[in-house]
C-alpha cells in the first residue's frame, strides 16, 4: 500500500490533499486543481505532508537580493575595468550599479530578516559553515568599497582612492555573484541541494547577464562592448547550465516543469534569449541595446525567482525527500548485498 494509491485508501488520499499547509500559499487547503506533485514513483508519507520545512525567506526580498547581488558583482568588475580601459559610461554605470545593487541587496537582506533590527548580530561570528555568514562578510566589504567608489564617481572627489576601492570591490565581486548558489544549495531543499554543482554556474551566468545587461542599459554604444559580451556569455551560460541542471535533477527537476517556477523559468529563458539576440544584433543602437539589457536583466531576475519558487515547491513535496533517499538506500543495499528492508514493506 502506498499513500499515493488513492483507489485503495480513498479517505486517506483525500487527507493527503486537504491537510497540507504548504508555505507560500494563503489558503489552508489546496484546491483540486493544485495537486501535490506526486511523482510517478510510489512512496509513502505522512498524509502527504511536507517532510522538511520550506524556506521562510521572503519573496520578493530574497530573489531580488540574489539578483541585485549578481548585478552588483559583475557591475563592479565592469566599472573597474571600464575605468581602466577608458570607457567612462561603462565605468560610471558599473560603479553606480555595483553600489546600488549592493545597497539595495543589503536593504532586501535586512528586510528579509524576521528581526531586522538585529542585522548586526550577523557580525558576531564568522562561520565558514554558514554561507549566509560568509556572504555577510563578502557583502559588507563589497558594499563598503562599492559605495565609496560610487561616492567618488558621483562627487568626483578622491578619484584615486575611488579607483582603488573600485578595484577591491571588483575583486570581491565574483564571490558575491556565486556564493548565493551555496546559500541555496547548502540547505535540505532537494532541488537546491542536489544542484550544488550546477547552481553556481547558473547564478554566475545570471550575474553576468544582469551586470552586462545593466551595462547595455547604462553605457554608451561606444563603451558597451564588454557589457554586451559579458551579458551574452552570461545568458548563454545561464540558459545552458539551467537546462543542464533541470535535466540532471531528474525527478527533482519536476518542480521546474510545473507551477509558477515553470512559468518563471520559461519567461526567464525567453527574456535571456531575446536579450542575447538583441544584444548581438542591436548593440549598436542605444535604444535596442538598452532594451536588450533590460531583457537580460529581467531574465536574470526571473531565474532567481524561478529557482526560489522551485525550491519552495521542492521542500513542500514529500516525494522529493522520500523517493531519492529510498533510492539511495536501495542502491546501497544492492551494492552491499544486504537486505535490511523491513519485512512488512511487502504488504504494507
Amino acid at each position, binding site marked *: 500500500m502506498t499513500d499515493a494509491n488513492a483507489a485503495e485508501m480513498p479517505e486517506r488520499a483525500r487527507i493527503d490533499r486537504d491537510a497540507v499547509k504548504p508555505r507560500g500559499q494563503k489558503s489552508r487547503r489546496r484546491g483540486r486543481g493544485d495537486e501535490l506533485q506526486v511523482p510517478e514513483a510510489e512512496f509513502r508519507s505522512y498524509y502527504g505532508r511536507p517532510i522538511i520545512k520550506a524556506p521562510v525567506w521572503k519573496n520578493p526580498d530574497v530573489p531580488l537580493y540574489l539578483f541585485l547581488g549578481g548585478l552588483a558583482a559583475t557591475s563592479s568588475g565592469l566599472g573597474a575595468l571600464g575605468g581602466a580601459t577608458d570607457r567612462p559610461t561603462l565605468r560610471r554605470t558599473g560603479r553606480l550599479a555595483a553600489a546600488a545593487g549592493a545597497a539595495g541587496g543589503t536593504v532586501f537582506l535586512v528586510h528579509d530578516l524576521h528581526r531586522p533590527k538585529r542585522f548586526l548580530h550577523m*557580525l*558576531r*561570528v*564568522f*562561520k565558514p*559553515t554558514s554561507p549566509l555568514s560568509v556572504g555577510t562578510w563578502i557583502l559588507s566589504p563589497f558594499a563598503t568599497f562599492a559605495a565609496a567608489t560610487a561616492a567618488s564617481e558621483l562627487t568626483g572627489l578622491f578619484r584615486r582612492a575611488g579607483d582603488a576601492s573600485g578595484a577591491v570591490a571588483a575583486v570581491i565581486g565574483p564571490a558575491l555573484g556565486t556564493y548565493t548558489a551555496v546559500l541555496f544549495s547548502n540547505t535540505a531543499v532537494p532541488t537546491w541541494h542536489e544542484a550544488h554543482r550546477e547552481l553556481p554556474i547558473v547564478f554566475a551566468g545570471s550575474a553576468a547577464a544582469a551586470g552586462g545587461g545593466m551595462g547595455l542599459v547604462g553605457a554608451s554604444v561606444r563603451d558597451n562592448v564588454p557589457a554586451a559580451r559579458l551579458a551574452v556569455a552570461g545568458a548563454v551560460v545561464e540558459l545552458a547550465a539551467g537546462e543542464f541542471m533541470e535535466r540532471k535533477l531528474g525527478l527533482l527537476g519536476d518542480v521546474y516543469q510545473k507551477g509558477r517556477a515553470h512559468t518563471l523559468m520559461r519567461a526567464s529563458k525567453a527574456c535571456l534569449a531575446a536579450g542575447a539576440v538583441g544584444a548581438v544584433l542591436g548593440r549598436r543602437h542605444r535604444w535596442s541595446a538598452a532594451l536588450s539589457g533590460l531583457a537580460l536583466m529581467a531574465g536574470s531576475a526571473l531565474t532567481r525567482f524561478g529557482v526560489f519558487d522551485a525550491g519552495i515547491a521542492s521542500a513542500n513535496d514529500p516525494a522529493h525527500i522520500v523517493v531519492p533517499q529510498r533510492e539511495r538506500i536501495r542502491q546501497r543495499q544492492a551494492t552491499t548485498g544486504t537486505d535490511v528492508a523491513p519485512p512488512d514493506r511487502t504488504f504494507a
Partner: protein
Amino acid sequence: MGVRTWLGEWPMFRQATGSDPLGRGSAVQSPRTQALGSRTADADEVVKSVCPYCAVGCGQNVYVRDGRVTQIEGDPDSPVSRGRLCPKGSASTSLVTSPSRVTTVRYRRPYGTEWEDLDLDTALDMIADRVIDARRKGWQDTDDEGRVLRRTLGFSSLGGATLDNEENYLIKKLFMALGAIQVENQARI
C-alpha cells in the same frame, strides 16, 4: 565597558582565540544563555498536591513564587503516578492561571438579559434567603398517610465528584440538617 572586555565578549574574538574556531558552541554562547536557570529553581515553595482531573490521583508538585503558581508538574515520589502526568494533568498550570477564569460574582436577575456584578457577601445573603424560602415552600412534615417525612423538596444540589471529601461532607451534613434530600453528583451520571 572596556574595549578589552568588549572584545573578549565578541564571539568572533573567542572563535579566533578559543577552542571553538567554527563558532558552534562555547564561543557563541550569549551572556543571557550563560545565566539561564530553571524557572522552578527560585520557587518560594514546592507544594504537594494531587491532579484535579480524573480519579487516578496522580501526584503533583506545585511551584509557587510570590504567591503565584509558576509551574505544576508530576510528583516523582508518588507511587501512583511516578511523576508522570497526562496532557490534562500537564495543563494544570494553565488551568489554575487561565485568563478566562471568572473571579468575581456574576448575577443574572430573573428575566434579565445580561450579567450583573454582585458583592460576594450580598450574594451569600441572598442565597441564604432563597434557601430558607425554598425550604419552606417545599417542606413536607408527613405524607398523606401521616408517615414522618420532615424533609423539603424545595431545592437540590448537583456536584461533588470534583470536590474534596471535606466539602462533600459539609454539603451532605448541611443538606440533611436542612431536610433537603435531593443531593446528587456525577457518580450517578
